């Protein structure tokens, strides 16, 4: 396949960025999207030009490093995948592909297609944990039975990889799917109950301070989430938050 790529180039956080056109040929449909960018970069370096900076690491859909806004969609046109799992067979010969960084005030650009998602870390520092000592001297694991349905729901929420696609897809750049998933994981488990009130209040407060917008129930986040995290988690967070506010 021969393709035209329109790629956002931005030297650093304080520089002005612009779209730059590149053409690439002999793209195999079996390549992943990131492997296609590897080929482009290798050509650029050989020509003495600067390669395009993009985040990536595990390349098997689980680390959450890869981002990219492709043709107006977080992680591109395929469903239920990260960018590293997006394959070029989703595109046609002659296509023009636009590649931009995830855009949100809370995700400042570091370089080219790389954004700073450390706001997600700070939300977790505010309460994304169960306060248990790491001594191993806790009760036997089977002394805390968990209803299978709750355990499965908790697991489904915990599968969030923190990639930020939900924020990038939201017209308000809201992080509520991410925070909802984190709150839900613990809210559904008996171990997480003791500090549930503080957890949801602190995490939501930090989320607001980071500059994420509000949820207006558009649902774009759920559509673009590579892990299929359900909107139900936002509802659960809202219920938790309301209950905590009334208590607090």
């Amino acid at each position: 396949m021969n393709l035209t790529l329109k790629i956002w180039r931005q030297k650093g956080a304080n520089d002005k960025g612009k779209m730059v056109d590149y053409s690439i040929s002999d793209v195999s449909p079996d390549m992943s999207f990131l492997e296609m960018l590897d080929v482009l970069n290798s050509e650029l370096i050989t020509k003495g030009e600067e390669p395009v900076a993009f985040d990536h690491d595990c390349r098997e859909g689980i680390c959450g490093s890869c981002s990219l806004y492709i043709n107006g969609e977080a992680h591109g046109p395929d469903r239920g995948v990260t960018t590293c799992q997006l394959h070029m067979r989703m595109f046609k010969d002659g296509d023009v592909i636009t590649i931009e960084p995830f855009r949100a005030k809370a995700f400042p650009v570091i370089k080219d297609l790389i954004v700073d998602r450390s706001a997600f870390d700070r939300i977790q520092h505010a309460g994304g944990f169960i306060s248990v000592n790491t001594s191993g001297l806790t009760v036997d694991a089977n002394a805390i039975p968990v209803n299978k349905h709750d355990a499965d729901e908790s697991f489904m929420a915990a599968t969030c990889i923190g990639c930020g696609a939900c924020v990038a897809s939201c017209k308000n750049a809201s992080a509520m799917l991410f925070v909802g998933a984190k709150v839900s994981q613990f809210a559904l488990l008996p171990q997480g109950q003791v500090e549930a009130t503080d957890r949801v209040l602190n995490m939501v407060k930090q989320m607001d301070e980071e500059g994420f917008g509000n949820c207006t129930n558009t649902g774009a986040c759920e559509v673009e989430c590579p892990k299929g995290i359900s909107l139900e988690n936002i509802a659960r967070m809202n219920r938790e938050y309301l209950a905590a506010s009334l208590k607090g």
Partner: protein
Amino acid sequence: MALDAKIPKGPLADKWTNHKNTIDLVNPANKRNIDIIVVGTGLAGGSAAATLAELGYNVKAFCFQDSPRRAHSIAAQGGINAAKNYQGDGDSTYRLFYDTVKGGDYRSREANVYRLAEVSANIIDQCVAQGVPFAREYGGLLDNRSFGGVLVSRTFYAAGQTGQQLLLGAYSAMNRQIGRGKITMYNRHEMLDVVKVDGKARGIIARDLVSGEIERHSAHAVVLGTGGYGNVFYLSTNAMGSNVTAAWKAHKRGAYFANPCYTQIHPTCIPVSGEHQSKLTLMSESLRNDGRIWVPKKKEDAEAIRAGKLKPTALAEQDRDYYLERRYPAFGNLVPRDVASRAAKERCDAGFGVNKTGEAVYLDFAAAFMRYGKEQAHVKGLDENDDALVKKLGQEIVKTKYGNLFQMYEKIVNQNPYETPMMIYPAVHYTMGGIWVDYNLQTTVPGLYAIGEANFSDHGANRLGASALMQGLADGYFVLPYTIGDYLSHDIRTGKIPTDTKEFEEAEKTVVDNINHLINNKGTHPVDYFHRRLGKIMWNKCGMARNAEDLKSAIHEISDLRAEFWKDVMVPGSADEFNEELAKAGRVADFLELGELFAKDALQREESAGGHFRDEYQTPEGEAMRRKEFQYVSAWEYKGEPKDAVLHKEELSYENIEVKERSYK
């Protein structure tokens, strides 16, 4: 230096308890005055950082990723072992210990492995308390499954994402300490050297990957939890950023590097599809619980399949060769990874491979669909003889167990594994070699510790499934936090370690000179060009099977390639900015040294053991042949060029296990 493993005296089962009772402790008030650097934030580094901070030490943690949550432990799929015996199938600490030593082909250290088995049960308790959502049975209790190389069900799991959930558990424990200010987190930072003062590790030189700034960080002790070096093969199941740099720099500063040639090749990966490939994707070994592995019995059928003229589903049962079930009836498809990997290579080399390149075998779930489906039909009172219905019900069960893996396979290969058998082939996965450590996990440099995959100690020559997560967390949560206190108890009066000393200056200069050389080289080829070539040499000559002749030529080729790299590598951009190519160049430079030591180690070891298979040493049936005279750990001392490295041996003695021929038949 004579290697002293510092294994405590006394009966095996009491060693760890006695050791904990007799080593020195640091008073809680003094812990506040002690700084510890932890490099790497995966299962080992993350759990260590959290625990050390909780004990009261001041921790500085470093990772090259944008968040500790992205460390490659996150990609581990299958599960974590623990000798809980919840299933009542005869499991015990001793059995887990025995299976691990046997699985490691009697090349691991008895005392360390026993301790690992001993603390394994606590890991599960700890993780459950932290809110790790393990798989549950309907009664609310934890579910287990089985993995290769064992006859009990001791593996705890969270669908096919156990590593992610365990890592998020450690990360949440870290978050709690970051929130309390006890851990200072340095994301997007890469360690580029260890600083030694008076022979002790007292800090590191790190590079801020965003600004390019070189930083000096001091501490009373340095802990490396930096993972393995499988990316020396270029193609592996490791994340793209996984590298040997921190470990290699530690080696250059005096830490011995042990068993570099012990590499685990994982049997169930998605086969290579073309030259563009950047990495190989692993499919959890747990699939072998329910999948049957086969190739066609007749060469002409294999040829027809490769040519696309015959569909695997059309091949009759009697024309299929379930070679693992045939060769190893006791363990069948659940033989250990090295055995399964070699058996696949043997069939493909003999001409029975099933993909275009002839380097793939089938992993078939058809039988599992029917087996589970019949059970479901029975439970639901439906017609057990309706094959279409049974298949559908069975597929639903398989989907709940391995759904994400099936989806991943379909995305990559573009074939539906519910309809046609998966194709798999072995790929480089986990490195059992690493920095030599004693029983306290201390390297040959005082104050420098190595944990998890970065050290060599617990896996021997081969690692059984679900044991890496166990070791990472055991080291980080339960071993290092005790043993490091013994060393630090002598440092309570030391005070802050200054960074404006000649040792820090000298180390920083080494780092800066290296970077300047790479940036100013202006050669003709990008870093990947050299990395790919290194990978080809490694895979072809130091891969699943090796021989003296190939290893000798590999040593020369790698050495020549290294010289060419330093002359001809092209690194664009500058050093004072975000520069991924520069970071990669430094990593590949270290791989080019490690690769040669790897080949040298493999050449020296004239035997076959686990993941190290020498063609010259095999039984008439093609099984690995160990040799008594090689029952030692090879620990290499750095002396400049890899060719000058000096070999030290730590003899391995087995007092509690009889060293037998390793049989899975």
